[in-house]
């Protein structure tokens, strides 16, 4: 048992426990923490697979941005985020359970097939330290896959603009139109309707 074996075991157990915690948690905050554990475990597995660059990206993007976004939304929604109401439609509940069971059966069959075919597994070959480094991934990213990379920037900009457009409250905008804020009333337009359009005289200036 080498250190690499132990590292793999620890990371995979962390990822599995985190995944189960995400699905089983009643409180979405706990679910987000489970997701965080899974992400950190998978980042560790990326390190084991000589993908240092992706491990760093995984931690920065997922643990640093996505999970924080989830936690922020749970905080915004407050206690309503976890309150469960009784299912309205029993047939929908049955359909959900059936779909979940079907997925479980298909996964078990897949697992059995994978296990049966893996009687003589091939070990990983040794690779140079360049495999998975920033240089190697960046080299490919900016030559062979330059067009998809640039399109990703467009996707991210569209996603940001779309998220703002969807999440912005229209309620607030309408209220603003109906009764402007005191500051706005104070600084905007004549103090009395009678004065609208009348030029100021010398005394008033």
């Amino acid at each position, binding site marked *: 048992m080498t250190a690499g074996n132990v590292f793999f075991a620890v990371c995979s157990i962390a990822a599995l426990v985190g995944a189960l915690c995400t699905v089983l948690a009643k409180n979405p905050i706990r679910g987000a923490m489970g997701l965080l554990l899974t992400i950190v475990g998978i980042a560790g597995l990326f390190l084991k697979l000589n993908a240092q660059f992706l491990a760093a990206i995984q931690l920065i993007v997922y643990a640093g941005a996505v999970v924080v976004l*989830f936690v922020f939304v749970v905080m915004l929604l407050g206690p309503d985020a976890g309150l469960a109401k009784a299912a309205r439609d029993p047939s929908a509940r049955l359909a959900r359970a059936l779909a*979940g069971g079907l997925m479980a059966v298909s996964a078990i069959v897949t697992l059995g097939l994978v296990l049966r075919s893996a009687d003589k597994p091939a070990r990983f070959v040794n690779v140079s330290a360049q495999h998975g480094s920033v240089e190697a991934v960046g080299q490919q990213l900016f030559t062979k896959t330059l067009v998809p990379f640039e399109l990703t920037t467009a996707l991210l900009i569209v996603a940001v603009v779309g998220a703002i457009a969807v999440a912005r409250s229209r309620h607030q905008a309408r209220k603003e139109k109906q009764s402007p804020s005191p500051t706005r009333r104070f600084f905007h337009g004549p103090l009395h309707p009678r004065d609208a359009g009348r030029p100021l005289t010398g005394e008033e200036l």
Partner: protein
Amino acid sequence: MNILGNVVEHYVLLSTVIFTVGAIGFLVRRNVLTQLMCVELMLNAVNLTLVAFNRRFVGDMNGQVFSFFIIAVAAAEAAVGLAIVLSFYRLKQTVFSDEADQLRH
């Protein structure tokens, strides 16, 4: 035991289990936030498979570059999905996907 974590099969098995947990969670849970987290779980499982196969068949970085794109798409998906959750909560005062039936009636 020296083989543990040094063959691609172990990673594929782990990734299958994580993907299945995510898929069952997506189907069974009704909280939209939990469902979005399950989508992230499934994307992570796929990333793990891609990187493991890239380690098995060395030569280029295709698997890792593809995984990089998946991470970018997942971040965009999370942002837009959570914005929709906020909008839905403003409309219905709940985050349960059973209540999202505006297109049914």
